[in-house]
């Protein structure tokens, strides 16, 4: 058989993909499918009937009555595709591994991308059919409601890209998480968080995160989906909202959402293809991890910086829409300090996440060194999975510090806070925070392994914050003690850095002295610890290399 025959299953032709067809067979059996389709049709029919009868009762015209059904139908479709579909993808993937049949699929001579596509569309195929059964109801409501294609096409386009993004997340969860129930719960939890917790982050300057959901596009389309009177009122309000700005560019909500989600889909595809090609591979290579980090930073910055001058970025405005029409509105300096701190914190957490992905386990390292010995090399290839992740974290920390500095400068030196400046040496402080925390974490992970780091995260990262919070809530006199305790946790360092170093910062009198002092002390400790950890890592790697390289080659 000709090896080139694998091109018989091109990745894009998903309808001929054997894995897709295999799931069409197993998940579209009349008995299983029938009950679900019946339930979906019942709900969709109920929504349309209710909208019509409310329209009759409230004397709405036929167009408005039909429009009343559109949003509830969208929610139903969202539940089917986003929640049930994602859970099915994650759980189905884990089930393949539980049953032990995943090795068969690994052996099939198809490209990794074709396999990913097969699972992506195959596992949730029943949910796609359920979604399709709601479409006649939606089509009727759109037709009767006089919704033009310019409204529904981008809306459903984003529903589709969001579905892909969430299903990719489910596929990745199912590939990485070993327990079926956990995979199922984690994926549902992630989608739930995207519509609850994540949009709140957008209100603290991290606007990019809201484009991971369909919410911006639904909001944009809302005036044309609602009954005419309500829609007109909403449209007037929305005229105050600018379009999405990305640095100097202007996008519609739909285009920008597709852009953000497309990037994530690309990264998820790379992760999954790597895993399908070699099960032992890291989810991302070092270069990809750095690239992904820079891309997220650019999205965060490009999205946030243009909103500073209009004031839309500030939480006080984001939380209270009515403030948009108050002429003398002025952001509080504390908001800028908090947003700068949160930006630093999210950057640090992203470094932790990517460091976890690219850091080689001791097993990987030993195998790498043995391979090097066999090939007569004295060092590991810098970008191989077995090579240290230390330098990649250094680069990410420096890039992160740059992004954080840029964001903070944009905020502090904006027209809202005249006379305030961010000195360039602040970059050094930001870099010190990210390098100390990021490298301390990475070096510990590489030298000691995940379990030890997990314990340290609890003892050093979480417990001090919890204890500090308890002390802080006792009385104002304990606030300074609480500030010192909370400062012990490396994750508090970015927030403390902004609170201590920005000229805008106006700390409450109880902690005005404690926070800057605690920051300087704990940063010093973190730097020493990171240097020590780096030395220990260097020593551990040197010993490992010596031991393995010194072994006689048989």
């Amino acid at each position, binding site marked *: *058989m000709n*090896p080139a*025959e*694998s091109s*018989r*299953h091109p990745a894009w032709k998903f309808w001929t993909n*054997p*894995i897709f*067809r*295999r799931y069409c*067979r*197993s*998940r579209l059996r009349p008995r299983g499918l029938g009950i679900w389709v019946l339930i979906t049709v019942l709900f969709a029919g109920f929504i349309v009937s209710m909208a019509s009868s409310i329209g009759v009762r409230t004397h709405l015209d036929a167009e408005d009555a039909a429009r009343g059904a559109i949003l509830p139908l969208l929610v139903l479709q969202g539940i089917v595709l986003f929640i049930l579909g994602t859970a099915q993808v994650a759980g189905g993937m884990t089930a*393949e591994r539980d*049953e*032990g*049949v995943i*090795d*068969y699929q*690994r*052996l*099939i*001579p*198809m*490209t990794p991308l074709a396999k990913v596509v097969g699972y992506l569309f195959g596992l949730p195929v029943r949910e796609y059919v359920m979604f399709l059964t709601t479409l006649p109801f939606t089509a009727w409501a759109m037709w009767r409601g006089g919704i033009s294609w310019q409204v529904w096409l981008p809306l459903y386009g984003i529903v589709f890209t969001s579905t892909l993004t969430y299903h990719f997340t489910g596929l990745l969860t199912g590939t990485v998480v070993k327990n079926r129930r956990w995979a199922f719960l984690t994926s549902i939890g992630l989608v739930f968080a995207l519509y609850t917790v994540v949009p709140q982050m957008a209100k603290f300057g991290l606007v990019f995160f809201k484009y991971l959901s369909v919410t911006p596009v639904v909001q944009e389309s809302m005036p044309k989906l609602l009954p005419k009177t309500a829609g007109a009122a909403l449209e007037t309000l929305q005229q105050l909202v600018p379009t999405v700005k990305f640095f100097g560019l202007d996008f519609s909500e739909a285009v920008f959402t597709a852009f953000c989600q497309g990037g994530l889909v690309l990264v998820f595809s790379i992760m999954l293809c790597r895993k399908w*090609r*070699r*099960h*032992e591979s890291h989810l991302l290579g070092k270069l990809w991890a750095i690239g992904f980090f820079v891309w997220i930073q650019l999205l965060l910055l490009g999205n946030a910086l243009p909103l500073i001058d209009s004031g839309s970025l500030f939480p006080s405005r984001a939380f209270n829409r009515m403030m948009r029409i108050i002429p003398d509105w002025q952001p509080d300096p504390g908001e800028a300090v908090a947003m700068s701190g949160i930006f630093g914190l999210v950057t640090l957490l992203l470094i932790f996440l990517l460091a976890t992905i690219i850091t080689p386990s*001791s*097993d990987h390292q*030993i*195998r790498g060194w*043995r*391979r090097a010995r*066999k*090939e007569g090399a004295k060092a590991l290839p810098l970008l191989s999975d077995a090579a240290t992740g230390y330098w990649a974290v250094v680069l990410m920390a420096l890039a992160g510090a740059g992004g954080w500095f840029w964001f903070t400068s944009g905020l502090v030196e904006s027209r809202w806070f005249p006379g305030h400046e961010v000195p360039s040496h602040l970059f050094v402080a930001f870099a010190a925070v990210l390098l100390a925390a990021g490298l301390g974490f990475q070096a510990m992970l590489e030298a000691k392994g995940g379990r030890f780091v997990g314990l340290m995260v609890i003892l050093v990262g979480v417990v001090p914050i919890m204890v500090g919070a308890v002390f802080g809530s006792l009385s104002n006199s304990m606030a300074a003690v609480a500030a010192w305790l909370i400062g012990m946790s490396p994750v508090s360092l970015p927030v403390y850095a902004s609170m201590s170093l920005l000229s805008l910062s106006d700390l409450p009198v109880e902690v005005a002295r404690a926070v800057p002092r605690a920051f300087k002390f704990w940063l010093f400790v973190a730097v020493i610890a990171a240097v020590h950890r780096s030395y220990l890592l260097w020593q551990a790697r040197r010993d490992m290399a010596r031991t393995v390289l010194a072994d006689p080659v*048989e």
Partner: protein
Amino acid sequence: MIANREQFQPAIDIRDLRVDYGNFVAVDDLTLSVPPGEVFGLVGPNGAGKTSTFRVLTTLMEPTYGEVQLDGVDVLEDIEAARRIVGYMPDLAPVPSDLKVAEFLEFHAAAYGLGSRAQRRDRVAECLEEVALTDQRGKWCKELSRGQTQRVVLAKTLLHRPRVLILDEPASGLDPLARRDLRNALRKLAKTGATVFISSHILSELAEMCTSLCVMNRGRLLASGSVDQVREQLGNTGRTLTATLLNRLEEGAAWLESREGVHDLEVAGQQVVFRFNGSDDDQADLMEGLIRQGIRLRSFEEKRSSFEDILVDVAESNRHS
């Protein structure tokens, strides 16, 4: 090594293969070559490195280092080409719970791109017949017995007519009749030029099925060749001999005991039972010498150590070291 590489392109060619799990060495610089058309057995106690070797051969695992070629295709470089060549039946042979037997096989036939839909159906029917499961084609995979499951997975493995077939414990769970069918199927396959690499704990079965075999222990290759060659390489030339004497029993026993290589001698009735270490020529000399002593020898029986005994010795030596 089974044969000189220059004489043929080996179906399976492993050089300096090493697999590590942290500090544990699962396969330690294994070098092995298997000619095409062989039914080659891989024997070893638990933890010998059999499954790790198989997983590297089937592209399911990346080794620490080493070179592996299947029919001239580098398994580590050209994964997809290697996957077209190899058929793998893992230990325990799992099947999906949500598919019927025919659906399971048709899915794999489609995945391997085995022609049109009708051609694929024909091939599935052929393979089902091969494993005597034609009447079970409409049954759910999860409803099959252990033996039937093994056979379904074997049918799946045979679907794309692999040039190299790798079977991890294929006979476990099969009844004697099914084992016989498996044996015949493998022989038939080998006659078409395919190479079968097989591991089993049922060693007598393996000895019957295989044209040659190798023994692994603690990741290392201890011996390879025919069953007798392997026995010899393992230094186990010992055998139990039983001489039935019709006269001068005590003299005969004393004479035997004085010979080199004879030990653990016991007399039971007319029989002298003893262990003998030596070549076949030495054994013939022993028999001749006994007759020359004027002893009437009614019979001389030999019982070689079974292959199981040898492996038990290997496993025991693991336990004691």
